[in-house]
């Protein structure tokens, strides 16, 4: 299935756009998605951290991504 992914900060610069579609198999976990993204965009692995949010909440590694989820790449935050 295809999942829409939003990217912010340095992650947007690495993937080249704010939003992109990414193919994943059914029952893909956040951990597996992160590995697939690292393969596709090796520069993501060089970041100090990269959290993934699903539907507006930080998602732990074992969360399974469903069709229609809003998936967001969250490189190290630097607000304030």
């Amino acid at each position, binding site marked *: 299935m295809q999942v829409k992914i*939003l990217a*912010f*900060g*340095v992650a947007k*610069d690495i993937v080249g756009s704010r939003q992109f579609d990414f193919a994943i198999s059914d029952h893909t976990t956040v951990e597996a998605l992160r590995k697939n993204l690292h393969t596709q965009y090796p520069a993501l692995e*060089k*970041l*100090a951290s990269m959290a993934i*949010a699903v539907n*507006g*909440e*930080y998602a732990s590694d074992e969360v399974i991504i469903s069709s229609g989820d809003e998936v*967001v790449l*969250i*490189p*190290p*935050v*630097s*607000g*304030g």
Partner: protein
Amino acid sequence: MIDIQLSEQELNAQVCIDFALSGGAGAVDVFIGTVRDQTQGRKVVQLEYEAYEPMAISEMRKIAESAMHRWPVQRIAIHHRVGTLKIGDAAVVIAVSTPHRAEAFEACKWIIDTIKQTVPIWKKEIFEDGEVWVAAHP
């Protein structure tokens, strides 16, 4: 009561203070984070802040709610700027009111420390000869 705002307009500290004061508290602590003109000696021209807005707002609200559980806080305003900021502009204003002063300082400091750890907002420093997303790389 909690007032969370994410805005491209200039922040107004007095608005946050008025919100915090209106609860009849004895003490208000206010933190203002501004854009400095240099980072480790390198001259900053401007900053660009971007946010994953709905989650930034919900994470700031969670932080404010946690602070209200941890301390006897009456009101909390958190206003965060996004967009292009000039040197000296306020990037964030936090105002916390409590019955007694020690908790106002503790809660306000905890809020800004936690914002910097968990709220999905990113800043890019623009130098005369380059730019960098702050904290992106180890």
